[in-house]
């Protein structure tokens, strides 16, 4: 009988060594001082290497062959290296740089190094793949790869506070133990990049804060203009890498929190600044090429923002929203004086825009009245159905299957350009010393519409009716018991959303020359469609103003810029959406309310300031 030898005490003994004492070490076993020096030095070296030639031939786009003059992707690496160096120096505690990192300098350094590494290695690999082998790299290419790798390794060696490890259950099966270890590793990895929100900064004088806002807006315009103007796929991917990691690094450094604190103190100034920056965009362009993208982004973003009232505030999942854009566009097209419109009238813009909005609103009420008695998924399905009904109805009103109104699948074409007070939108104009082309004209007009929608959103959300919407979204039964006429309030949200979409549609008809039923599908490759609109809202952040604007910009730019995605575009989009919902369910720019909702565990501020909505 040897049973007693497997005494219960034995499994405990191997665990006891210092494994559960959280030591402040890095992910990589290098001394912290060496790591910091390597990261900072690597960053500086990356800056230097951006001035060298990376390849011998100009066949790789961007001409990376010139010494002393960085081009294309080199500029991005240069910026990344600069950030890495600055954060590195700041983490040493250099006096003037402390202001850069009110949060966690080490985490910011890690992300900056990671971003630089990703951009540089992507470039090097892209060069090798495109030109056929690493022989095509010049010494500068090797140097930048080495420098960014060193910077990354150095940054990863920086110490961080490891989370308290969960004790393992000794009864775990092998698979459970493996999962436990994996979980532990993931927690460790997350902790390596964690940064607690910075302490609230001191309040600067008002003029200085406004200056900061101006600077941020200018920077935003610069980044956006650069992104929209990227000429080839590689540069755009590099741009996304640098911008994404750069933003994350700034967030970890605490700068984003600081700036959002400033912007919430000056909301009107921020809004004005943002619109001035957006209005300045066409003036930075030498031709109309990118203003085209700009105006389509604006249309998309404006409609998404209108949808955000319905989905984000009132919580009504509308899968047929694009139909209202279509109603507005068709209405405006019918009265635009287009030769293919059966109504041979030519209304001025203000009248057709108003008519488009009103007709869309009427459709909103007509569709909303029967469907809004449904809740949740049922409402989604019914609105999806109505969206398709709109498209098919329009398709059939071609004179053979139905009355001749919309010209069927040919749509209403050659819609004339707008002419407001003698300002012909189809012509080029000289404004402030730059040439403003057709799309730039429409861009500025569309910006006005966006401004209207933003103001409507802001004002309605912060009022009795907005609170009623949010209450309905939170708990419909309780909201009814508080005396809110749920149906009426929801119908107002639905009609308002439809009205704003119709307004945007009345401009869209003129921008695109032609309206066809195919533009207003549920899912389509070209953005303004119901699925993409909803995705823009969810991706950007429900219930916020800037969320759908950012979401729409990304969703439009990425497919427009990455031609090679081609057939896999929807697939990539789906994967990205799944990943986003897994790791950041509150969206890119979260409503603070929602952030608290989805991340209860994190130490979120319990107090929601008035600006939270």
């Amino acid at each position, binding site marked *: 009988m040897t049973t007693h030898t497997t005494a219960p005490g034995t499994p405990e003994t191997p665990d006891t060594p210092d494994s559960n004492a959280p030591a402040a070490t890095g992910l990589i076993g290098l001394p912290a001082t060496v790591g910091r020096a390597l990261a900072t030095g690597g960053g500086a070296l990356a800056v230097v290497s951006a001035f060298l030639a990376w390849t011998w031939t100009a066949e790789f786009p961007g001409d990376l062959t010139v010494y002393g003059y960085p081009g294309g992707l080199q500029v991005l690496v240069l910026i990344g290296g600069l950030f890495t160096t600055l954060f590195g120096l700041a983490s040493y505690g250099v006096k003037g740089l402390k202001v850069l990192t009110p949060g966690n300098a080490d985490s910011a350094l890690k992300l900056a190094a990671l971003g630089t590494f990703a951009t540089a290695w992507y470039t090097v690999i892209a060069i090798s793949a495109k030109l056929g082998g690493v022989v095509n790299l010049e010494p500068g290419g090797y140097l930048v790869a080495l420098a960014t790798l060193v910077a990354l390794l150095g940054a990863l060696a920086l110490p961080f506070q490891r989370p308290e490890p969960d004790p393992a259950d000794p009864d775990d099966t092998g698979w459970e133990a493996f999962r436990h270890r994996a979980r532990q590793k993931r927690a460790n990895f997350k902790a390596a990049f964690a940064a607690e929100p910075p302490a609230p900064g001191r309040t600067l004088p008002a003029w200085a804060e406004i200056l900061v806002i101006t600077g941020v807006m200018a920077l935003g315009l610069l980044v956006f203009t650069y992104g929209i103007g990227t000429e080839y796929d590689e540069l755009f991917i590099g741009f996304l890498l640098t911008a994404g990691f750069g933003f994350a690094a700034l967030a970890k450094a605490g700068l984003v929190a600081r700036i959002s604190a400033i912007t919430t103190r000056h909301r009107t100034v921020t809004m004005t600044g943002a619109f001035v920056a957006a209005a300045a965009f066409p003036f930075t362009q030498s031709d109309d090429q990118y203003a085209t993208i700009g105006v389509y982004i604006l249309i998309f973003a404006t409609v998404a923002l209108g949808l955000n009232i319905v989905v984000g505030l009132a919580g009504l999942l509308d899968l047929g929203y694009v139909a209202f854009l279509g109603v507005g566009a068709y209405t405006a097209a019918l009265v635009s004086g287009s030769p293919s419109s059966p109504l041979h009238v030519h209304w001025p813009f203000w009248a057709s825009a108003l008519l488009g909005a009103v007709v869309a609103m009427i459709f909103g009420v007509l569709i909303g009245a029967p469907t809004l008695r449904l809740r949740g998924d049922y409402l989604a399905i019914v609105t999806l159905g109505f969206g398709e009904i709109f498209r098919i109805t329009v398709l059939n009103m071609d004179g053979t299957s139905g009355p001749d109104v919309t010209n069927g699948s040919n749509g209403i074409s050659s819609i004339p350009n707008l002419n407001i007070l003698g300002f012909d939108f189809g012509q080029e104009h000289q404004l402030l010393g730059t040439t403003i082309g057709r799309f730039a004209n429409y861009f500025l007009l569309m910006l006005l519409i966006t401004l209207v929608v933003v103001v409507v959103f802001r004002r309605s959300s912060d009022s009795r009716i907005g609170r009623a919407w*949010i209450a309905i979204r*939170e708990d419909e039964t309780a909201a009814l018991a508080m005396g809110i006429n749920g149906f009426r309030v929801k119908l107002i949200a639905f009609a308002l959303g439809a009205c704003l979409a119709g307004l945007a549609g009345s401009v869209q008809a003129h921008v695109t020359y032609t309206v066809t039923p195919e533009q207003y599908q549920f899912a389509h490759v070209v953005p303004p469609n119901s699925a993409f609109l909803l995705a823009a809202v969810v991706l950007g952040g429900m219930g916020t103003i800037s969320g759908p604007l950012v979401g729409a910009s990304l969703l439009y730019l990425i497919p427009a810029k990455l031609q090679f995605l081609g057939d896999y575009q929807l697939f990539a989009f789906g994967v990205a959406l799944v990943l986003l919902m897994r790791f950041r369910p509150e969206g890119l720019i979260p409503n603070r*309310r929602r952030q608290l909702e989805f991340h209860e565990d994190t130490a979120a501020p*319990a*107090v929601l300031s008035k600006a939270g909505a």
Partner: protein
Amino acid sequence: MTTDTTTKDTAPGTTPGETVLDARGVTMRFGGLTAVRDVNLTVNSGEIVGLIGPNGAGKTTFFNCLTGLYVPTEGEVRYKGTVLPPKSFKVTAAGIARTFQNIRLFANMTVLENVLVGRHTRTKEGLWSALLRGPGFHKAEAASRARAMELLAFVGLDAKAEHLARNLPYGEQRKLEIARALASEPGLLLLDEPTAGMNPQETRATEELVFAIRDQGIAVLVIEHDMRFIFNLCDRVAVLVQGQKLIEGDSATVQGDERVVAAYLGEPFEDAPGDEEAAEVEAAEAQADAVPGKENRKETDR
């Protein structure tokens, strides 16, 4: 057979004040199941009335009939003489506010916003007013905020006005629910188990709060399981058992009634509660004397 219970209705009508709530013959059927059968209940102004009964007795169903969440199959509910409309938001507008058994706050709104939502029926500002932001809008908004802060101070939550409702501790969530209900300026407040899950101190605080609400001239109808709480608080208590009203009267009457005790302690409740049961009890007692080992039964019968 509810004949004998209706006779007792008239007994405690001593409290002064007009009738605020008058439920007559309320019956609620769900298919074949009769959840509430022919219940009569009146609440007078300045009165706190308790509604008790074992689990599943139909208290919450009756409550839902009063608040328009359910439309009673038979019978009618009058509030200050007018029949209540069958929509819960119209009932609130008429002047009946309620809280919920399981807290239903707007979890992701702030404490202040929750109370402001409660003000919905007493404010008029629509979408146009919100968009145009005239002077009337700002005035109404400021007045609403002032009133909401007043109510928060009344329940003792004014310091936490900007907190998210979900972050409040349980007892304070209950208080906030009451403040939110009071924001609609009700004439009658229905509290559905306001002390569920509270510790004794919190229960006492709630008691004080309900008295303070009564002192403002608001009639209160409370469902509760905590007997000490209900008998301390209420001017009148009605007992609901298996969907029927068993008895109604002041605390002493109800506490002393053996049918109530029987209903609570699980004695099989017969259709005819009066004499027949008494006879049965007596028979049981007699038997218990003869047969040892049935003491527990005797004990419950007292």
